């Protein structure tokens, strides 16, 4: 089976307001950590010749946002390509670049500072077409509300179950040195938090976060030069749903199921419940955890709430990082998930390390209400 190696990961701790560093500074911290772990260089013969970056022009308020990071990702007189969707897709693209034979070592770095724009919702409002969606005021928060409502109708998900998800997320986040929101919350607190976008309450929403994350990737032949303990990307799939909310069955996980199906197929997985030891899902809002787990086939359609009640997430090691709910920025939420999964597979997850993790699945979304999903399979 074709695979490429993740030789090292570095995460910048997520904060709600990283006022003391500009993103270049954050990315340099990440680069230095990876260099320290692996000793890689940018030598044109033996090192990294091509870099993949992940960032978003609207969130950075900067045309060609990869221009701003060139220096701190070592791309001066080297190649660089910006993956302008959620960063997990960058890992898939890196996989292609290495399997193609074009590169054998790639440095990948993503960043996003949600604290920079005065409103991340106004940013995502710009994702809607200027004629109808935008003037209506759609943004990723309120379309998530629409999707959450549809999912509640379909599955019977309750406020209690969503509160359970949030409480558990904070418990795990407290053990993750890179997580943002580590304050513990009580069940009652979550239930009582203000309704923001029915049925989404304020404590169901991922906190505004600034972050940066880096990976060193290598071909199978060269992985050992950079790591004694590389982790392998063995499956990748992504899928686009329709654009207009009315054209979609928004509680159906259409795109996620296809993306997962393709990733599992590439990785040779027939039954994810048996094959997968750890799951990281990009749960921007509490309802998304059970819903995405359905799409990844950890429970049947509509059975997400039951899965929560039966402690499914504990059984399958779901979001031991605290998940997106603990706070990562939008455009690289999936990269943080992948970083966590990689650390778990390497046995380097410290306080939140799970036992016997041999295979993991990582998921992210791009666009509103999960219009586009990406799934990655990692193994030891």
């Amino acid at each position, binding site marked *: 089976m074709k695979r490429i190696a993740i030789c090292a990961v570095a995460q910048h701790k997520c904060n709600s307001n990283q006022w003391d560093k500009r993103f270049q*500074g954050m990315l340099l911290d990440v680069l230095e950590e990876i260099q320290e772990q692996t000793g890689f260089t940018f030598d044109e013969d033996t090192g990294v010749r091509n870099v993949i970056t992940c960032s978003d022009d609207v969130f950075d308020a900067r045309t060609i946002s990869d221009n701003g990071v060139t220096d701190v990702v070592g791309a001066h007189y080297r190649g660089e390509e910006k993956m302008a969707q959620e960063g997990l897709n960058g890992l898939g693209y890196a996989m292609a670049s290495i399997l193609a034979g074009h590169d054998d070592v790639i440095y990948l770095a993503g960043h996003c500072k949600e604290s920079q724009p005065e409103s991340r919702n106004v940013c995502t409002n710009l994702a809607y077409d200027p004629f109808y969606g935008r003037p209506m005021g759609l943004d990723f928060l309120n379309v998530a509300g629409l999707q959450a409502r549809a999912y509640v109708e379909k599955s019977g998900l309750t406020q209690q179950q969503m509160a359970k998800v949030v409480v558990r997320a904070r418990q795990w986040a407290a053990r993750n040195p890179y997580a943002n929101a580590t304050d513990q919350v009580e069940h009652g607190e979550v239930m009582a938090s203000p309704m923001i976008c029915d049925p989404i309450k304020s404590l169901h929403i991922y906190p505004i976060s600034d972050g940066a994350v880096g990976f060193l990737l290598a071909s199978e032949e060269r992985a050992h030069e950079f790591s004694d303990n590389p982790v392998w990307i063995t499956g990748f799939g992504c899928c686009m749903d329709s654009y207009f909310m009315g054209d979609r069955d928004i509680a159906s996980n259409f795109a996620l199921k296809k993306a997962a199906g393709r990733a599992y197929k590439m990785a040779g997985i027939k039954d994810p419940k048996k094959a997968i030891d750890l799951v990281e899902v990009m749960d921007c809002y509490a309802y998304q955890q059970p819903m995405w787990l359905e799409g990844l086939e950890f429970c049947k359609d509509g059975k997400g709430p039951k899965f929560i009640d039966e402690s499914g997430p504990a059984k399958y090691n779901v979001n031991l990082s605290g998940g997106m709910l603990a706070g990562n920025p939008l455009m690289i939420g999936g990269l943080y998930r992948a970083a966590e999964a990689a650390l778990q597979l390497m046995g380097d997850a410290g306080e939140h390390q799970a036992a016997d993790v041999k295979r993991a699945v990582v998921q992210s979304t791009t666009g509103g209400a999960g219009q586009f999903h990406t799934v990655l399979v990692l193994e030891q």
Partner: protein
Amino acid sequence: MAEYFGTKIDDIFNTMEQRFLPQGAQGVDASIGYNISGEVGGTWKLTIKDGTMNLESDVGDLTGCAVVLNADAETFVGVTLGKIDAGDAFSSGKVAVNGDLTILGNVLPKVFVPFTPVVRAEAIIESMPERFRPDKAEGVNMKIGYDLAGDDGGQWTVIVKEGECFLKESLEADCTVTMRMDAQVFVDLNTGKLDGAEAFSSGKIAIDGDMGAAGTSAKLFAKFEVPGADEKHGEELISLKCVPSINQRYATGPLMGKWFKGLKEKKFYATRCPKCGRTQVPPREICAACRVRSEDFMEVGPNATVTLIDTVYYASPDPLTGKIRETPYVALFMVMDGSTPDQSFSHELNPKDINRIKPGMKVRPVWAKKRTGSYTDLVYFEIDD
């Protein structure tokens, strides 16, 4: 007179009075010269002042005008009608402008209703065979004579026979009915500006021969569509303006922070790469070439040597303020004193030195009196002499 795109040059100027919008001319004081070349060209001077317009033709000397538009007749008509792209005409030199170009863009659209092609009687008559409706002409045979007086007048006979329609450029002797009127009246009748019954009763139209035939004839032809009217009756382009505005809060980080602090103290800080020694000004976290963190601070300047000069004539908006920059301005590239020679720093030049500046000269910074640790602390550079 020659026509371009169905329009004569004179039409554009002759209709200026009726297209003039006094309310748009309030506060306008401008003189615009038109220098149109070619056989049918000429020179016109349009003066707009105190809410009124004055057009002079055959002016000859247009030097007093604030702006003069030079073009050949065909291009001028084409651009006016929108048949020739104004941008292309300008880029390719087919339209040349002396003087203040902005007047054309700012004043003309405010003071005039856009020109639309003048409709002529000839065009209406000549379109009759096309507009003929054979389904309405069953069993009808007639000859309709048109005797139109005036500059754009003429005589025509429209023959309807056995379901077909022909046009003759003369008045036949045996017309079933002959209609006589001024050519402009004929145009107004056909463009909905004048009511037929009113025109007849007020003596504007004279009809010889079979009155009944006159009435029938009207039903045999589809309505005349004014060219360009299609765009009015068809789909209207609706323009909505929406300005998304998202305030940003940028972090300087410690290095740029120190840079701005330095400006407050009239100092330029650079970082030096520990590996290759190059000085980066303003300071940056990393030396991009060596890919190592570079945090050794040093002072450079304050004076510098100019290496490259860019004189900017194109006024573009500043994306942070939306204000249009004043032009011309000079962007300077320079090497600061004490900096490594491969690293240039760029800033603006004091406008007073625009004509004197040359590469190789030394320049010194000009500081704002009140400095707050921001971009505005450094006003510009000027020649150090």
